[in-house]
């Protein structure tokens, strides 16, 4: 037991002495939470509009004022012809153009008055939303003078500001735990191989399993510390509610941490150099954990083959379980499928890597 504890102390010292790495491991989740929580949003906001109108009359002026007054749009330029507006769109100096037919106010009741919205479809999703918002506003103005009637009243439920935090918090948790538990563990084991200290550890009577477990524990602690940071920020700063029980959330997280640690162990067993371990964990763990876990892109909209692969990514199960518990507030019994899959993954990975772990050098 003393051996085990001194092993853990030794690992903890390695981590604590490399201040720069420690700073990043602690600081990264915090910065990421802020970026994902605030900066990553697809809310329609500050859209730059070019007005194209040969004459300004009170009708177009009213429409313009309405657009400008909304938080969605800013009128940033006025021109008299469409080509000029298109040039502005092309250079990304504006996001949308609104063209009024000539003498708009005079023709408003004879059906000759027309409005054209020119949308920049480089980002198709944003373009569709912006055009739809703009036409709502124009329409409501026209309705008020009786030119048009009917339309749509849009109500975005549960998340009216379209904040991304709800979606991202479980994702960021999955990603951070993957980096710390899988990547850092594998690098730290491989480093001992590279520096030659593994040789001495092997020649000692300590059981290899002890070496490995002792390596994992400090990273497990670090992972839990980061988890606490993330949850604190998400609760107090981003105001993401933790609807379900904290206990079941912790239980699922610990299970995921174990899966991540076993993955890290597997990588360290299979690689010989730090660079290889880094690349392997970066490409085989991190990329899929970000892109294919449903963190940003919903798994349902992927092609079937990729959906299949996505189900092999442990993070996708964790994120799904997390969302259910955290955001939707269901009890742990409702996530039995995710828990089962992760348990099986952990057992499988641990068995393989312990089988493969070499007690000798070759």
């Amino acid at each position, binding site marked *: 037991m003393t051996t085990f504890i001194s092993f853990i102390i030794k690992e903890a010292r390695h981590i604590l002495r490399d201040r720069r790495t420690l700073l990043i491991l602690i600081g990264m989740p915090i910065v990421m939470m802020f970026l994902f929580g605030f900066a*990553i949003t*697809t809310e329609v906001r500050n859209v730059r509009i070019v007005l194209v109108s040969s004459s300004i009359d009170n009708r177009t002026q009213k429409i313009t004022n309405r657009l400008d007054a909304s938080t969605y749009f800013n009128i940033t330029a006025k021109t008299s012809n469409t080509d000029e507006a298109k040039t502005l769109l092309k250079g990304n100096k504006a996001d949308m153009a609104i063209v009024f037919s000539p003498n708009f106010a005079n023709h408003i009741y004879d059906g000759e008055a027309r409005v054209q919205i020119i949308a920049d479809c*480089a980002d198709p999703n944003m373009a569709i939303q912006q055009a739809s918002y703009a036409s709502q506003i124009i329409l409501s103005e026209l309705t008020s003078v009786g030119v048009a009637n009917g*339309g749509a009243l849009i109500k975005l439920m549960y998340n009216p500001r379209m904040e991304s935090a709800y979606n991202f918090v479980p994702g960021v948790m999955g990603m951070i735990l993957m980096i710390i538990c899988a990547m850092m563990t594998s690098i730290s084991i491989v480093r001992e191989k590279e520096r030659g200290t593994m040789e001495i550890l092997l020649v000692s009577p300590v059981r290899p399993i002890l070496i490995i477990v002792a390596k994992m524990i400090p990273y497990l602690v670090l992972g839990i510390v980061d988890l606490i940071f993330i949850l604190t920020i998400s609760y107090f700063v981003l105001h993401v509610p933790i609807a379900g029980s904290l206990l079941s959330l912790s239980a699922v997280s610990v299970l995921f941490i174990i899966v991540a640690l076993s993955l890290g162990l597997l990588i360290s067993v299979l690689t010989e150099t730090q660079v290889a371990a880094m690349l392997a964990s*970066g490409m085989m763990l991190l990329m899929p954990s970000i892109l294919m876990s449903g963190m940003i*892109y919903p798994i349902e909209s992927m092609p079937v083959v990729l959906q299949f692969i996505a189900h092999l990514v442990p993070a996708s199960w964790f994120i799904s379980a997390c969302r259910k518990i955290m955001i939707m507030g269901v009890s742990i019994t409702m996530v039995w499928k995710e828990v089962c899959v992760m348990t099986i993954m952990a057992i499988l990975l641990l068995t393989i890597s312990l089988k493969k772990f070499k007690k000798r050098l070759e």
Partner: protein
Amino acid sequence: MILRYLIEKEFKQIRRNAFLPKMIIMFPIVIMLVIPWITNLEIKNISLLVVDNDRTTTSQRLVHEMEASNYFIFKGMSSSYDEAVKEMEKGNADIIAVIPQYYSRDLVNGNPTNVLIASNSVNGTKGAMGASYLSNIVVPSTGKLPISVLNLFNIYQDYKVFMIPALMAILLILFCGFMPALNIVGEKEVGTIEQINVTPVGKFSFIMAKIIPYWVIGLVVMTICFILSWAVYGITSAGPLAVIYLLAIIMALIMSSLGLIISNYSSTMQQAMLVMWFCMVCFILLSGLFTPVRSMPDWAQYLTEINPMHYFIDAMRIVFIRGGSLFEIMPQFMALMSFSAVMGTWAVVSYRKNN
């Protein structure tokens, strides 16, 4: 011409590496073939519930139009809004349309009337897109309307057109950022950098010899991407390719300088890699690559101004999608040029031969 020999050496080392050449070829191929399918935010198959309080031929016609749209899966009619919301909470519906009472009468009489669209926006994009699609069906059906929409640039609204230039940018910064950083820290760890430091190789030559190979690799990667996007997706650049290559070279210079700066300040590979990774994530998230910059809060928008990636993505999209030329991207171009000047100088200065 010391530089020539140094560059030759870098290439030989890359070629002799068991892993790098394979990665340079395979990584972009995998990224270009797989990621566009994953990062697709084309929203389809939205479950729709309709509450028809009007029950006239007009309202039925509207319901039929909704049914016909291939964005929606029509889940049927619901008797009341409250009931529909319950269904949504169970997860059986993503969006609800409520046609108000007297809808057709109000339309004919010219009284204001609105169809209510309630969309589950826990996933913000999905919710908002569904609402937009639905309102685009509802609004024209209300009769003759003086509003029309003209789509420019990506007229088929193909999401891949939007993502492909972004993926190229990501690949470029991954290759040009990480590889030189790991390379220099590697030389530090082995000790070979010491040997170079006692030779008359100047700082500038040394740094250039580390940067130029990754320029070339960056351009090779770009070319692979262009070929693939043309051959697999049929997507080609709308603007001149030369401008894109020019941008790529400048961006490669900025990123590899960043890599060198980081490696000059870090002592181990692990440090260099983590710092680099951290920078990359911030750069990408704050570049407008996934989400529009103007949707960000003001403080984040100020941050994007000091992010070279932001200017690069902007310029790439202007040229690749909107068909702009050098003239259109002048501001971004100038910004990138000044970034490269600052970063390049910093890289050379921070490399210490003598302490």
